[in-house]
């Protein structure tokens, strides 16, 4: 009788069997080209341009930050509290390891930008304790062995831990584990301080921020976005960028394409502070993930298709019980840790798990950056920075640099139009 061993590796989005060595090697060269491109100073390149940013999550705020650093005059609108939707209810993971191979270059570049920001005024508690994917059976272990080769070709530093090494490095882990693959440069940060210090820099640089002020519509004249309407009246701008996260679909009509982003609940719970786990990396396996916060709590999460669609952010007993069970199996040594808090947020899913980033077809000067499929905290630094290139490609006729196009070329926001199918005009 053969037993089918399940794959419960939480974070391995790459299919190591379908990924080719050419694709993996391309991730390394894409990263090198992107890094070279990002070394250029953007200061002043957007001087005199007025940009309205719609949405004050990490994507909107980080976009506003890089646009402001490039000299644009930014006005940001947030419907509710700044950084309080998914952007204030996430696990703070900033990682590349585990990503599908064509996202690795972008995710690595974003980690580097987070690190750079943390040395230039943004208090994100950024650190790189690594990310360990833990196998609990031989099937998972064989997937990790294959994945290791691809990530190595992609240039990501990794290290395979034997079961004994995993026990030594991951306090409390199941001693019957089948080994762990560790991405040694993966990072994490703290959303609340990051958001607070981005807001402070924006205000100091005279960017205008309106919170509790939803944008009602985008204003178009002569085929060009001219600003937005809100309860404050009309705000004129040369460019409008929609960073509305899971709410993006509401702008489909203005954008002239099907902005198919679907909201789904995802839940987290947090233990009391636990002493002695100072070097605990981000860990994942057995359908859950966990990390140590800078304050010393362990945060445990894990969503999936079994979760509810929509904007409900109350914790459910089923999910907490699921997280408790799976985390206790993965880390029996932490099973007695007291849970002090549980919360839920809304992830923003697209059908192909790629974001929507690029121009809206309906009018010039309208741009989209949303739908980050539960990866937006890590990616926001790169996406914010690349928005400078994106908007310049539409205004100064500076074409999108090849190094940028190589990593965002698949993200065109109009790609779901063909699949719409059921329109009934």
């Amino acid at each position, binding site marked *: 009788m053969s037993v089918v061993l399940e794959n419960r590796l939480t974070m391995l989005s790459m299919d190591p069997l379908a990924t080719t060595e050419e694709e993996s090697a391309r991730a390394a060269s894409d990263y090198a080209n992107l890094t070279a491109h990002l070394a250029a100073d953007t200061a002043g390149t957007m001087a005199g341009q007025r940009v309205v940013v719609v949405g004050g999550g990490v994507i909107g705020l980080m976009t506003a930050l890089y646009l402001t650093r490039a000299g644009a005059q930014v006005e940001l609108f947030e419907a509710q509290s700044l950084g309080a939707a998914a952007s204030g209810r996430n696990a703070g993971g900033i990682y590349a390891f585990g990503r599908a191979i064509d996202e690795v270059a972008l995710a690595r570049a974003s980690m580097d930008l987070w690190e750079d920001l943390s040395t230039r005024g943004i208090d994100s508690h950024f650190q790189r304790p690594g990310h360990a994917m833990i196998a609990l059976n031989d099937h998972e272990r064989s997937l990790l062995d294959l994945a290791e080769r691809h990530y190595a070709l992609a240039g990501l530093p990794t290290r395979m831990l034997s079961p004994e090494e995993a026990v030594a490095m991951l306090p409390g882990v199941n001693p019957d584990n089948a080994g762990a693959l560790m991405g040694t440069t993966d990072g994490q940060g703290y959303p609340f301080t990051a958001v607070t210090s981005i*807001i402070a820099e924006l205000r100091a640089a005279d960017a205008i921020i309106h919170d509790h002020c939803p944008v009602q519509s985008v204003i178009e004249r002569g085929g060009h976005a001219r600003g937005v309407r809100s309860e404050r009246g009309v705000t004129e701008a040369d460019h409008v960028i929609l960073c509305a996260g899971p709410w993006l679909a509401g702008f489909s009509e203005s954008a002239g394409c099907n902005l198919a982003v679907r909201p789904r609940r995802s839940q987290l719970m947090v233990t009391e502070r636990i002493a002695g786990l100072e070097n605990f990396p981000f860990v994942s396996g057995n359908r859950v993930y966990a990390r140590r916060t800078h304050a010393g709590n362990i945060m445990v999460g894990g969503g999936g298709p079994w979760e509810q669609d929509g904007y409900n952010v109350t914790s459910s007993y089923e999910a907490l019980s699921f997280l408790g069970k799976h985390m206790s199996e993965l880390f029996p040594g932490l099973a007695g840790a007291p849970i002090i808090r549980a919360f839920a947020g809304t992830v923003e899913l697209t059908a192909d798990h790629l974001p929507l980033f690029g121009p809206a077809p309906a009018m010039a000067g309208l741009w989209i950056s949303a739908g980050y499929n539960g990866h937006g905290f890590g990616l926001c630094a790169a996406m914010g920075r690349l928005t400078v290139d994106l908007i310049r490609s539409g205004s100064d006729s500076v074409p999108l640099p090849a190094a940028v196009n190589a990593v965002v070329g698949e993200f065109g926001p109009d790609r779901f139009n063909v699949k719409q199918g059921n329109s009934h005009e």
Partner: protein
Amino acid sequence: MNDHMICRCEDVTATEVRAAIDAGACNAQEVKMRTRAGMGPCQGRVCRPAVEAMVGVTDEGVLRSNSAMTVHLPVRPVSLQDLVIEREQ
């Protein structure tokens, strides 16, 4: 005599709460996001009334937004494994 301890779990003082409000926080949840008040083991059971009273007194004298600090499950700390055992009963 401004520096009363507001959140004992996370060591947040009245001055820090006031600074968060001055920087734009307009409800208890926004104060929590800026200061960690309410994020310790008692989950705001002690400090929530004080923080909510402080945000109520803005320069404009009104609450701009009425969303309060979220009350999170569990009401009393429960261990990871207890969450499981209770389900299996």
